[in-house]
């Protein structure tokens, strides 16, 4: 057991010191969770190659207990969004996220997943996966080196360490809500934003100078 786990704040008799550890429930709960985070085998783009390298012999994320990559979201704890998130892919990512059981974590690996990166201005690129799903750790870099990825994983472990079994969301009633899956329309549409979209496109309709609005008004009238 790790040294940080055994913090009894309580006097253990010397004859028992070699065979007994005393710890808190939170600590052992978090220790066991953070030492076997199973990432989903889910590669999007360039960063996925560095993720594979991090799993290979030189860097070896097995040291964190994280080498068990599961191809199915239903068996994984961690979604490593490793690469550019496109609008065409976004509904599928949300569905995968919804299929993951709690407790679940998301790491946005690299510039693209964190904020669009070099492809931000592209018409088919999401400016950061956090527009749709909650992200726990952001890793900068294009692509982040395996060392940077490992730093991100350690940061995630630290975050897990701070959680308490009494307060975590997955033991609360009705806390685990599913995220509505975006719809591919003329552009990607978040079902939560339909009102905003309608309001804005109608506003554009009122614009008298815009020739496109004139055509659209005529179509609506007829």
């Amino acid at each position, binding site marked *: 057991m790790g040294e940080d786990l055994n913090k009894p704040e309580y006097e253990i008799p010397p004859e028992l010191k070699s065979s007994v550890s005393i710890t808190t429930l939170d600590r052992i709960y978090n220790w066991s969770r953070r030492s076997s985070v199973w990432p989903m085998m889910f590669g999007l*783009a360039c960063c996925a*190659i560095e993720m594979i*390298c991090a799993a290979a012999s030189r860097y070896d994320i097995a040291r964190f207990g994280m080498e068990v990559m599961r191809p199915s979201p239903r068996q994984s704890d961690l979604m490593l969004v490793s690469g550019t998130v496109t609008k065409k892919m976004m509904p599928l990512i949300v569905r995968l996220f919804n299929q993951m059981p709690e407790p679940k974590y998301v790491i946005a690996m690299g510039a693209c997943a964190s904020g669009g990166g070099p492809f931000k201005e592209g*018409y*088919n690129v*999401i400016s950061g996966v956090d527009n749709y799903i909650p992200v726990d750790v952001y890793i900068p870099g294009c*692509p982040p080196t395996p060392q940077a990825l490992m730093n991100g994983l350690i940061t995630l472990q630290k975050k897990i360490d701070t959680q308490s079994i009494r307060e975590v969301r997955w033991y609360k009633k009705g806390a685990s809500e599913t995220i509505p899956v975006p719809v591919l*329309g*003329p*552009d990607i549409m978040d079902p939560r934003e339909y009102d905003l979209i309608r309001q804005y496109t109608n506003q554009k309709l009122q614009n008298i100078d815009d020739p496109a609005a004139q055509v659209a008004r005529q179509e609506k009238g007829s």
Partner: protein
Amino acid sequence: MSAQIITKNSDLLEKFPQYVKPDERTGYNGYVVSSDHLIDVARAIRDELGYDYLSSVTGVDYLPDGLMEVVYHFFKSSGGPALAIKSQVDRNNAVVPSLVSLYPGADFQEREAWDLFGIQFAGHPDLRRLLLWEGFEGHPMRKDWHEPYYEEDGKPFKSRWPDGKISLAEDKNPFHKNIAFPTGFDPDKWIPDDDSVLYSNIKNIISSEDESGLKTDYVIVNMGPQHPSTHGVFRMVVALEGETIRVLKPVVGYLHRNHEKIGERNTFLQNMPYTDRLDYISSLSNNFGYALAVEKLMGIKPPERAEYLRVIMAEFTRISNHLFAIGSLLNDMGAYFTPMLYAIEERELILDIFEATTGSRMMCNYFRFGGVARDLPEGIYEKIHDLAFERLPRKIDELDLYLTNSEIIKARGEGVGVLTPEDAIAYSTSGPVVRASGVPYDIRRADPYSIYDRFDFDVAVRYHGDVYDRYLIRVDEMRQSVRIIQQALTQMPKGPIQEGKPQYVVKVPPGEAYGRVEAPKGELGYYVVSNGKPNPWRYHVRAPSLINITPLEKMSLGNKVADTVIILGSIDIVLGELDR
């Protein structure tokens, strides 16, 4: 010089005097063919002139002239320069006959041109959008189509230069997101397409087969885009009879990151780091092709030492790519991760050299127009020397020893996913895929570029065209790459690495150029059109991964699902390049 374009081909002009005209714009080559007679001309090009290989099909939007142009580059599979023909049509009614019946390799490229430019190809068997989804508003590569974060047509943007201010693109968008909607659009009335055309096409194929004999139940399965053996976000829709594949339709575009649209906003040099991210396993080869295309437009050549550095880096890239390809192919076959670990061990050593020389492990951004960015740092020459003369030959032999005669690999690979040489050429496949089918088509030999004509190496060819041969050919090619590196290291002179001063903004004269290299995955071509401004007017990437999967259905039909996985693995696709 690579990919010269034939300017005088009297046969073509004599045969079709009325509707074939030489392209007389300054800096342009090839012929302009009227769209009504395109099929006849293409048939003559294929059957009489012997240009059996249609390399690239792409659209160019000449907005000021109101024209939409389709550019075709034909080659002979026996080697030699290109024959470029163009067909011009009205922008608002862009209809061009499809060449799929003559050159099946045009299939995905024509679909891409329809998707991005809105050029209709009359007679195309399955003209659906390729990279975007059905229902997407507009055709984004048209010059008058603006993305939601649109600021200006070309960089550097006035808000950033000369006295730049920090601003977020999100703040200028009403949704604070990268989205835009047409005027008066009502989201509640929208019915998503959900690939209805694709599924009904598959059902039609199935039902037409049903008419003869017993009725069979088919199951339609979606493999991907989240699937461990599709090498990224690739999706195949398959119709299965038991476990046997009856129909297979690839669906791509899940990693379409608008490389070409961004490329036309960027300045010429700004595109260099973006090319790294095309085929992200072999970034230096991508740099090579783009540098060649722009250098051809500018009419410059790099100094000797830079040429050698380019070749060394490109060949190391090929080795690292093939190691990775073999590793993941064996993963797909079920040798879960063990061969991959051996392959990545060697790849890491090559990446160390890249990191020391270029500053980055993967995204090297090393080539410049007329040279390379940096010389080899101290101590790296010795490292390269050790690797090329000692370690890599030994390790490739080791890989060969462990894997090649393995009973499992033979049983899984031999006779599976066969591609005949005729099909390989007709489907425009390139690289290891075409050479494993017995066609010795290697651009380093067929149409030499850079200094490849100085080296003594063999073009690896295998003759069965199955998965096993596509594995073997990668081992062969690694050996040849080591030979090239060894010769280059011995011959490399001292001297400058950059022609003239390094420049941030290069002056590119108006014209067009098609630069192509033998990338690890196949023929990587860049079609660049300049109008004399700092930004390219058209920037197109002929991605080998995309075109190599055109015959995937043909190779997979009648095989089992598990075989399709290794057939895909043996083609070796990278989604960054496939979707761009």
